[in-house]
């Protein structure tokens, strides 16, 4: 049955559309342009982090350190701006810091053979500590220079009526998709998750690919950190707590296998949107934030269980 097959092949999308339909019945304001743009803007940070994590998970790895990388990079960026650093330089330095931190994860994993879970758990803990030391546990102001005002556009600005964070997320997804699907590097990412030994024997420098993949995840966390800092107009030392789990949830909801080798970025985007719509819906329904976490967890569990049942029947 072709219809059934189309539904199963696009089950993340079907789930998203069903969810949106249900919420719009409950709250007509849900489908307003303002609210939808709001959802997209709120989703963009999680989506950007999830993009990096998708690459990592495709290699059969995991990156738990993204929340801490986000906080540290946000603080670095804020301090640079407070010192009146030119905007482009501040952005590049911050992205590089994120890339280097991610690459450090990659080195620990691929050169020292530490399990990705452990390596990035250590990274998560240590970098949070570094952030607290660096900020002395206090929010970092972006200062009063003009450059800070320009920087705020990254979080709160609009371009042709669309919030800039959405455009940034769309841009990195386009580039991320092209690299993953249209370059040799992207194939290697899938291949390593499919079977690392086969990939190595085929003559591919697996270590280098992995280090780049973790570096990319760090760069994405840094970008997300800057957007968050720009939005809040200051960097919080506790920013990004628990973000890694939302990002991993988005990847999993998008149908990417945690065993590696299988998955798509479009799936991740849809997964991130499901989480975004869910957050928005729970807010519209006035559910207390304590219950929101329970509800979110339940929906993710339901999605994964349904997914594995559909898979085992197919």
């Amino acid at each position, binding site marked *: 049955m072709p219809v059934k097959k189309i539904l199963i092949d696009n089950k993340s999308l079907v789930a998203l559309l069903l969810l949106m339909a249900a919420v719009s019945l409950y709250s007509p304001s849900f489908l307003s342009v303002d609210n939808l743009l709001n959802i997209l803007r709120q989703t963009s940070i999680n989506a950007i982090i999830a993009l990096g994590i998708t690459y990592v998970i495709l290699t059969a790895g995991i990156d738990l350190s993204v929340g801490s990388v986000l906080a540290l990079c946000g603080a670095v960026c804020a301090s640079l701006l407070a010192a009146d650093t030119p905007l482009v330089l501040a952005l590049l330095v911050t992205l590089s810091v994120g890339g280097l931190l991610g690459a450090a994860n990659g080195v620990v994993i691929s050169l020292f053979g530490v399990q990705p879970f452990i390596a990035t758990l250590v990274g998560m803990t240590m970098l949070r500590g570094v952030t607290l030391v660096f900020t002395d546990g206090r929010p970092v102001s972006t200062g009063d220079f003009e450059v800070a005002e320009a920087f705020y556009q990254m979080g709160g600005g609009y371009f042709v009526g669309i919030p800039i964070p959405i455009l940034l997320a769309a841009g990195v997804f386009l580039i991320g998709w*092209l690299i993953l699907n*249209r*370059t*040799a590097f992207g*194939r*290697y990412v*899938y*291949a390593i998750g*499919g*079977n690392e*030994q*086969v*990939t*190595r*024997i*085929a*003559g*591919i*420098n697996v270590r280098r690919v992995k280090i780049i993949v973790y570096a990319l995840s760090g760069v994405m966390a840094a970008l997300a950190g800057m957007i968050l800092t720009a939005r809040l107009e200051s960097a919080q030392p506790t920013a990004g707590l628990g973000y890694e789990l939302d990002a991993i949830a988005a990847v999993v909801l998008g149908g990417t296998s945690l065993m590696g*080798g*299988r998955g798509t970025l479009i799936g991740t985007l849809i997964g991130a949107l499901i989480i975004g719509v869910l957050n928005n819906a729970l807010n519209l329904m006035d559910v207390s934030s304590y219950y929101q976490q329970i509800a979110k967890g339940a929906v993710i569990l339901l999605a994964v269980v349904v997914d594995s049942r559909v898979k085992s029947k197919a």
Partner: protein
Amino acid sequence: MSDLLQLEAVSKSFSAVTVLDRVSFSLKQGSVLALAGENGAGKSTLMKIITGLYSCDGGQVLYRGQPVSFTSPRQAMDAGIAIIHQELNLLPNLTVSENIFLGREIRNRWGLLQSAQMEQATAKLLRDLKQDIEPDRLVTSLSLAQQQMVEIAKSLSLDAEVIIMDEPTDALSDVETQVLFEVVLSLKKQGKGLIFISHRLDEIFELCDQLAILRDGQMVHVGPTDEIDEAQLIRHMVGRELSERYPYAAVPRGELCLRVEELSAPGVDKISFEAYAGEVIGFSGLIGAGRTELARVLYGLVPQTSGRVEIKGQDVRLKSPEEGVAAGIGYVSEDRKGEGLIQMHSLKHNMTLGTLRRFATRSGFLDQRRERQEVGRFVELFSIRAKGQEMSVEQMSGGNQQKVSLAKSLMAEPGILILDEPTRGVDVGAKREIYALIQSLKEQGLCILLMSSDLPEVLGISDRVMVLSRGCLSASFSRDEADQEKIMCAAVA
């Protein structure tokens, strides 16, 4: 002798594709039945029905005269039907004895495991198989052949009445195979019934009393083994006449490709030889003699500890497969699943994995049209049977997978090709195609190193034969000098 196991008109379809069509045969007490057929003929499905992994759509299975329909392999095992799988089903991180007693551990009355008792029993089983393996070793540290012997020990420990062996000798060398044969004969004397599945036709004739041949899901022949010869057997299996089994023609020897001097590495002890363009060198020897180890050192997968390697006059010291490929070496691993192909990925993605960089345009993006054309060319050249280039490798037969593996290595246009067990788990028809391919590569001037435990194959297609024994090169023969006996003598030296 009475019938132990009878199949009556067993049929099975998967989503409208008939895999077994009214298959009947019977297995008597104290006999060995060979089940022959090409890959995809339905042998594995048939065994899965007998052992309760699948249920049949039509017909019935009688065990000791009673109709049975097991719903799990566990049930079949408890009733006395054991199977030794072609794919090893051992848990790598458990010890040998833990694997053998998995699910039926010996416990004391407090529920604690009696490890010593289980290890003693394991040691005895392995001794019977003439295997020198400590029961407390982790399975992951064993060679493929040793793992196969553990698998055999495990099924013997079940004390089953019917034992099914699905290509048990594929990973074994001749000496281990002989041990296994002795075990089979003693089981037969004890009145057990054995079903033996093998691609090695000589083994079928040596070991089996009865022969059942499947082709495309139908039983095309059942009868005593001594009423049929090899040519007839092949004709029944493939449904067509195959000319001589090994295509071989000498070609003029080309330039010196590879000079190895006193090369040492773990498992390889001071090996020296030279190899030329346009020749096939067959490396024979027992399991663990160092063939795979030699292949891996030459490719750069394992670093050499001492000695010299010269490729086309250049001194090389390879430290990674990456460097091996760059030095013009192609390598096809003996372990297709673990090292050769990414099972879940497509034919196309597997085939071009090592050569993607040549399909990249200046902008860094892949020229997918050119990639598809090139893959298509190889699919046609090697007559790979697949439903399109996007078909995942795990759905393909062993022979076709092996051809994809070969194509993957050849895409890089290597000057030296190392093939480790290139026909393992491959059916007769595909085997011949692979031999013909090796011959034509040789004619194109490749230097081919063939590591194989299949002696007739080594003798059939090699220009020279080198024999390894305990990591050393123990003898070297020209094609004319080499025969089975001399090679075996050198192998056990």
